[in-house]
């Protein structure tokens, strides 16, 4: 009865205020729900992509001397392998390689394994590289030099590409961490029957079952990983040593679950501050009715309301605000996808937030006596009296020192579970909180002891009223201080995450460039530089030698570059050359023809010092002397972390035959790389390998560590902007509404709109400038720390922070709209007939 009476009144007369509080709750609920939805859908996509990327889920290999009788799960085909000593046409010979026997429908069951480039797939097929070596085409007859048997002849019916050659020729059962085996140079694929004719009984013959599992996997890559690897182990156990499982799908999921964890990490790092902000905002919104609420409470007290009654009334109000806010918030979140379980979690979170924000202000001990509304007194909040701001900032810096360089994602040896080191976030979180408190302190200093200064600053806006304006602001120090702080924190949040995202995107781009080397990369071609340069859309062509050489017993990629021109065509980054710049490193190569850049690992292994002689052995046994000149960590198109970089001219003269082939790095004149790639493909025919940056960026972006931040950042930045709007505009308007009595009285005392404006615009300027300046400074500091903490996410680490100009512009534009709008709304409201306002209080 009591509760209904109260609620009825609130809903009919104070609906607007309840709606505003509900809007705060809606913000608090929408973010985690939307992020949650995004996270689960991202994880599902990651699992699906891993499944897509793998051509063959399992390669189950029979062990020598054994044959597998255990039934295979899913769809499977038998594949036979054997080694041969060489292939030849009447004019050309090539070295050893492997012959595969595939059933006729193999390509239908495992479409990702082979890609027909020329001819048809009915007979013997040559891998692209082998066909190029032999100058063979469909119809060519090739002699197979079998090991320990007479030569045989096959007629080539087609040329294929083997995109997953690494996995196809893997050593099944190799210990974890072993050097991956390079695929054979020459590959011959035969129909199963023909293979059996040629190789049955060969000592090198091996049999594998290629398995495609039913893809009913859990959506989370980590769960899917556990399921798939568990099934693989289970099969091995059932085969009792007769076979081993090469678990390609497990490996892909293993990588994906790390990605998933990174995205979860980002979820935490974006979501938590957002939710904290929403809580602060809602708390400020809830407190903004304090004056009126205090007099209501005083009345209730006088009528004998016990704290339990306050609690009941407050709870009723809370539940209504919560229900409305949660519905609205989930509605917002539903725009990003089906909310489901995340909705429930967020709704629960919303309830906690609502209780934490609405209840205290409803329950604050009602010692107020009516008619004596509280004007804030000068006492600073406890947190500031105990110097908590400096303590937090100091703690953040100490923690930062302690945790930098920590691995963020932990993949413990031998365990299927991986975990995240959430501690690393403590430092930026503390910094953010500490800076927020510091902002609060500064604002309180300005409006309290610094009142004279404030009056002088207000003079241009307020003229003769500046002292009065400063006094009235000083007596509102509490709400204004909180408002500026929340607004500055929101700005800091948006800026730091935008900076992080921009840096992340910059590095993803760098990563793509690193992988592809240039806008378009052309390999396996006999075309000349000039011919490529003639293709429309090409602005520059840079040749790059690529081959292999042994350092000691370790086979490494060897690159030869043209020191004079490479800097302009290949996008070399300073970060590729630890302790040096790109220009510096290339300069070292230019300074000495036989200079060599090697990986840090090689430097350590061989105790190299600059100027030391390094002898490399080519694959055909030739020994070439080089001089060690510097360290290289990354290089365009280099697949592994261990490789060598030398001068192309020196390679051409020292080992013209064996130091590899030429790759061309093609820069475009602004035409989209994939368009130029298509033109090149037309020009050079199917045998040339052509890859472009657009495609690579997509592939890199969807593979390791490259969590697609697009959706995530859209959600979180949109939300951050909403928070900024709310923290500046909404809180200002609410603050003005709270003081509408003051404005109405000033009106009836004869104040003109311009003079009311003095009160309003001074406060708007204070909030706007405070939030912009202090928020930007705090955001910059937090962004720096975040990027440092999250270095693990970046591959390679950034040279510098990317500044999100776009977001800065949006933020500034938003401020230029919202702040004046808040002022104008307040001014308009102050023009309402003042008597109505005065009577209503």
């Amino acid at each position, binding site marked *: 009865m*009591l509760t209904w009476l109260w609620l009825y*009144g*609130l809903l009919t*007369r104070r609906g607007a205020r309840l709606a505003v509080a509900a809007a705060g709750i809606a913000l608090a609920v929408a973010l985690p729900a939307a992020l949650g939805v995004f996270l689960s859908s991202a994880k599902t996509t990651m699992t699906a992509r891993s499944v897509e990327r793998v051509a063959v889920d399992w390669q189950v290999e029979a062990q020598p001397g054994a044959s597998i009788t255990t039934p295979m799960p899913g769809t499977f085909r038998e594949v036979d392998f054997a080694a041969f000593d060489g292939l030849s046409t009447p004019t050309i010979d090539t070295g050893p390689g492997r012959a595969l026997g595939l059933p006729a429908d193999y390509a239908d069951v495992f479409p990702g394994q082979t890609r027909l480039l020329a001819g048809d797939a009915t007979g013997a097929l040559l891998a692209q590289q082998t066909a190029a070596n032999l100058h063979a085409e469909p119809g060519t007859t090739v002699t197979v030099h079998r090991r320990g048997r007479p030569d045989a002849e096959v007629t080539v019916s087609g040329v294929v590409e083997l995109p997953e050659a690494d996995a196809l020729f893997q050593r099944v059962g190799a210990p974890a961490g072993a050097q991956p085996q390079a695929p054979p140079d020459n590959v011959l694929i035969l129909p199963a029957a023909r293979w059996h004719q040629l190789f049955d009984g060969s000592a090198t013959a091996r049999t594998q079952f290629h398995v495609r599992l039913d893809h009913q996997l859990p959506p989370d890559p980590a769960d899917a990983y556990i399921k798939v690897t568990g099934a693989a182990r289970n099969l091995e156990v059932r085969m009792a040593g007769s076979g081993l499982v090469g678990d390609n799908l497990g490996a892909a999921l293993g990588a994906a679950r790390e990605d998933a964890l990174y995205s979860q990490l980002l979820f935490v790092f974006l979501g938590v501050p957002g939710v904290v902000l929403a809580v602060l905002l809602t708390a400020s919104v809830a407190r903004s009715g304090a004056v009126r609420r205090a007099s*209501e409470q005083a009345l209730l*007290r006088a009528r*004998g309301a*016990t704290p339990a009654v306050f609690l009941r009334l407050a709870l009723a109000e809370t539940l209504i605000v919560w229900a409305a806010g949660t519905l609205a918030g989930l509605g917002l979140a539903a725009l990003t996808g089906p909310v489901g379980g995340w909705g429930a979690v967020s709704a629960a979170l919303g309830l906690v937030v609502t209780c934490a924000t609405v209840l205290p202000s409803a329950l604050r001990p009602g010692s107020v006596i*009516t008619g004596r509304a509280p004007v804030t007194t000068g006492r600073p909040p406890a947190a500031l009296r105990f110097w908590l701001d400096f303590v937090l900032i100091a703690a953040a810096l100490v923690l930062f020192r302690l945790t930098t360089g920590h691995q963020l994602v932990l993949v413990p040896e031998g365990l299927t579970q991986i975990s995240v080191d959430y501690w690393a976030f403590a430092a930026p979180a503390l910094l953010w909180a500490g800076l927020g408190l510091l902002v609060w302190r500064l604002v309180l200093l300005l409006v309290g002891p610094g009142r004279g200064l404030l009056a002088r600053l207000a003079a241009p806006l307020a003229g003769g009223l500046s002292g009065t304006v400063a006094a009235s602001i000083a007596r509102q120090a509490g709400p204004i201080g909180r408002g500026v702080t929340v607004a500055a924190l929101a700005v800091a949040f948006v800026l730091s995450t935008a900076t992080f995202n921009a840096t992340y995107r910059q590095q993803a781009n760098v990563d793509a460039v690193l992988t592809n080397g240039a806008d378009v990369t052309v390999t396996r071609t006999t075309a000349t530089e000039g011919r490529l340069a003639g293709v429309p859309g090409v602005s520059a062509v840079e040749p790059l030698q690529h081959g292999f050489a042994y350092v000691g017993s370790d086979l490494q990629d060897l690159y030869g570059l043209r020191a004079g021109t490479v800097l302009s065509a290949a996008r070399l980054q300073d970060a590729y050359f630890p302790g040096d710049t790109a220009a510096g490193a290339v300069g070292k190569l230019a300074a000495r023809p036989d200079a060599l850049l090697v990986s840090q690992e090689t430097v350590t292994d061989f105790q190299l010092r600059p100027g030391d002689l390094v002898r490399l052995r080519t694959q055909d046994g030739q020994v070439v002397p080089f001089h060690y000149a510097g360290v290289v960590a990354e290089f365009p198109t280099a697949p592994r972390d261990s490789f060598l970089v030398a001068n192309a001219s020196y390679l051409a003269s020292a080992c013209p035959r064996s130091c590899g082939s030429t790759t061309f790095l093609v820069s475009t004149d602004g035409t989209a790389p994939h368009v130029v790639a298509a033109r090149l493909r037309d020009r050079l025919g199917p045998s040339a390998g052509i890859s472009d940056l657009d495609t690579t960026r997509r592939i890199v972006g969807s593979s390791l560590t490259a969590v697609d931040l697009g959706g995530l950042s859209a959600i979180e930045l949109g939300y951050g902007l909403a928070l900024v709007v709310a923290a500046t505009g909404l809180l200002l308007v609410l603050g003005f509404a709270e003081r509408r009595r003051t404005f109405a009285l000033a009106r009836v005392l004869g104040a003109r709109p311009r003079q009311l404006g003095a009160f309003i615009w001074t406060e708007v300027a204070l909030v706007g400038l405070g939030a912009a300046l202090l928020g930007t400074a705090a955001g910059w500091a937090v962004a720096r720390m975040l990027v440092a903490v999250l270095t693990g996410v970046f591959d390679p680490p950034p040279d510098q922070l990317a500044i999100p100009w776009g977001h800065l512009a949006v933020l500034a534009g938003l401020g230029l709209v919202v702040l004046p709008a808040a002022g104008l709304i307040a001014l308009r409201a102050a023009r309402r007939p003042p008597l109505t306002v005065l009577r209503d209080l």
Partner: protein
Amino acid sequence: MILQAEELYRFYRSGEEETRALRGVSLTAGAGEVVAISGPSGSGKSTLLNCVTGLDDPDGGSVRIAGRRISHLPEAEKARLRSRLVGVLFQSGNLVGHLTVARNLRLAQALGGRPDRAYLDELLDRLDLVGLRDAWPSALSGGEAARAGLAVALACRPALLVADEPTGELDAGSEASVLDLIRDQAREKTAVVIASHSAAVRNRADRVVELADGRLV
């Protein structure tokens, strides 16, 4: 004795300054007795009434209502005592803004745990508020708001009525009918304490207590 307040002290501190609003004031009121408190502006009348109703704690001294000590009790117990025994009328701002006049009365009755529609109607009638049952507080004139406030204070038939300047904004006619109502309450064993400047109030009180500068004279 319904009300026994002994040796009350109350000092306000604002910054460096200290205002000694009460300096050893004692006050009693028996069942059916109407006590008027008068004194110049700022002499401590409102402060005394706030201490008497337990809305404010005195810095020294004690207050008993119906034999039970109310000062310095936990808020919940004070509130329970107030809801059963005390009706309070402030100098201004006695109505909850988001409830109509009648609902303000019903709220008071609900808080006191004594819903009584008949009495509610009687109060509205005697205070000439029938036409304003459903008016919002913001639409009341000064005198109407004062009368509605009194109706709310009386809504639970309190044993002790504490009223601060109930007739300050009333014309002579309304003042007389308000005082008639208060006397009728006293006849039903309510103790009444009224702070007022009005001669009419003083004339119809059983006893007048003079306050000056926080002390009795």
